[in-house]
């Protein structure tokens, strides 16, 4: 293959990763933005989403698309409910103190991880994709001074990967619409801007916090359900998404949703491209270097607003 088709392949792989990463990171960013809570257990909510997807598809049976469809709805709901319970029993008691909640969510990370190990076991288990048609992709060449399409051997993707990219975009648009257009989004933004004044105008801040924490976890779980047919469900799979989500959120600017999405695309695509052409390790090294540079030269992130 020439360089061109290779690049297309790398960009598609990167886009799948960017899509899943954006969902995960937006969840993390929302929780930090509104609640000022750094949720170290975010990756475990991701992992729980994947593990629950495996359980649900096992229980439902039937064609893969049925079990997967149910998992897509049920897993985020259960994970969201678990997060709401964690918020009300742990974070609320700590009065959402920024430092103590870090320690508490570290504890939550280990509890979720070990409970999963005890119940689900150490194996990595696959979940069948609902559909998985191989799609050959065309490329073009210039022949006799005219553009001509051809189908390079080995240049293909699957319908499922394209669906993941589409689903990611759709959910992100949904989150954006919710924040910008709905009453719930208005209330969340008011709490984010000034917690005390939100209280002074009748907003039940603690209920909003519980909801945001649940929503953030549900987004991570949804991302995991989308990726599990491509990767597999394992009790330690939460570490990478957590790290990557933090990378994205720091580069994009803590609490800035547009910044988070742009940074997810940047990191996802560059990871795809660098992994295909060089090595996945180099991709991680460069991403980490970028975080370090951002922290030193632009601590508020590329899109964040410097806090007064």
């Amino acid at each position: 293959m020439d360089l061109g088709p290779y690049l297309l392949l790398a960009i598609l792989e990167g886009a799948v990763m960017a899509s899943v990463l954006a969902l995960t990171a937006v969840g993390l960013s929302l929780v930090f933005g509104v609640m000022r809570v750094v949720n170290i257990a975010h990756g475990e909510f991701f992992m729980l989403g994947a593990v629950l997807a495996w359980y649900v598809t096992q229980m439902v049976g039937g064609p893969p698309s049925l079990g997967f469809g149910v998992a897509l709805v049920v897993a985020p709901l259960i994970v969201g409910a678990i997060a709401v319970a964690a918020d009300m029993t742990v974070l609320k008691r700590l009065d959402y103190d920024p430092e103590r909640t870090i320690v508490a969510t570290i504890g939550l990370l280990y509890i979720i991880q070990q409970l999963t190990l005890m119940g689900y076991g150490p194996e990595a288990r696959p979940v069948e994709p609902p559909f998985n048609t191989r799609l050959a992709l065309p490329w073009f060449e210039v022949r006799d001074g005219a553009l001509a399409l051809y189908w390079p051997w080995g240049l293909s993707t699957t319908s499922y990967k394209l669906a993941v990219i589409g689903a990611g975009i759709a959910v992100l648009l949904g989150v954006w619409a919710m924040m910008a257009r709905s009453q719930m989004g208005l209330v969340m933004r008011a709490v984010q801007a000034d917690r005390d004044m939100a209280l002074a105008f009748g907003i039940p801040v603690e209920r909003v916090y519980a909801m945001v924490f649940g929503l953030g976890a549900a987004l991570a779980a949804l991302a995991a359900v989308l990726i599990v047919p491509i990767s597999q469900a394992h009790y330690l799979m939460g570490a990478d998404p957590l790290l990557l989500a933090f990378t994205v959120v720091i580069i994009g600017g803590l609490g800035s949703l547009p910044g988070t999405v742009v940074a997810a695309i940047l990191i996802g695509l560059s990871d795809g491209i660098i992994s295909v052409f060089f090595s996945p390790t180099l991709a991680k090294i460069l991403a980490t270097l970028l975080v370090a540079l951002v922290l030193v030269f632009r601590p508020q992130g590329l899109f964040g607003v410097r806090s007064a």
Partner: protein
Amino acid sequence: MLELDRVSAGYGAAQVLRELSLSVSAGEILCLMGRNGAGKTTAMRAIMGLIPLMGGRVLLDGAEVSALAPHKVPRAGIGYVPQGRRLFAGLTVAQNLEIGMRTRSSPPEVLEEVLALFPRLRERYRQPAQTLSGGEQQMLATARALCLRPKALLLDEPTEGLQPSMVDALRQVTLQMRGRGVATILVEQRPDAALAIADRIAFIENGRGGEVVPVEMLRRDPSLLARYLGV
């Protein structure tokens, strides 16, 4: 109407208010005066339930609002215009007012009434709150509180650092609210402004309530004011 009954409160273990008692009736403006750090803002926060009370009660129309969860205090009918305005940054003028309208589910005509009081806000309706001038921001903070149709209004240094024309506009609105029977506690540092608008003036020092004086007395003998303020 609104009453503080031996309210003690502070931050963490540090007590600021020491058995502060105050009361203001419907259609009255009570001016709260005292030096910087005396506890005026803390008293406002205590009324709103934003800091827990160490003792005492806050009553509105005889009902103990200090027993309510903080977000239910404004729903009982207390509008708060905090020191430093504290608008919802990132939200537009319209959205800031919408938050006020939601507090007690005010009918839409309330918004029209409030905008009629502050026509400037109508011109800036779709602008983010933080892009407004200082005076306009103060108007918005006041309008936001009026959107909940308050029975009692807390104004914490509403004219700090504003041009005279703005000060006058806000004073007119405050007087109009008094005419509609709103009970107002106004924190005001400038003696001339306090004397011009207050019905009674209450003094606070070190978190303790001092004299409460009808304003006529001070208008007759302004030197008394300096004595009460301890300056």
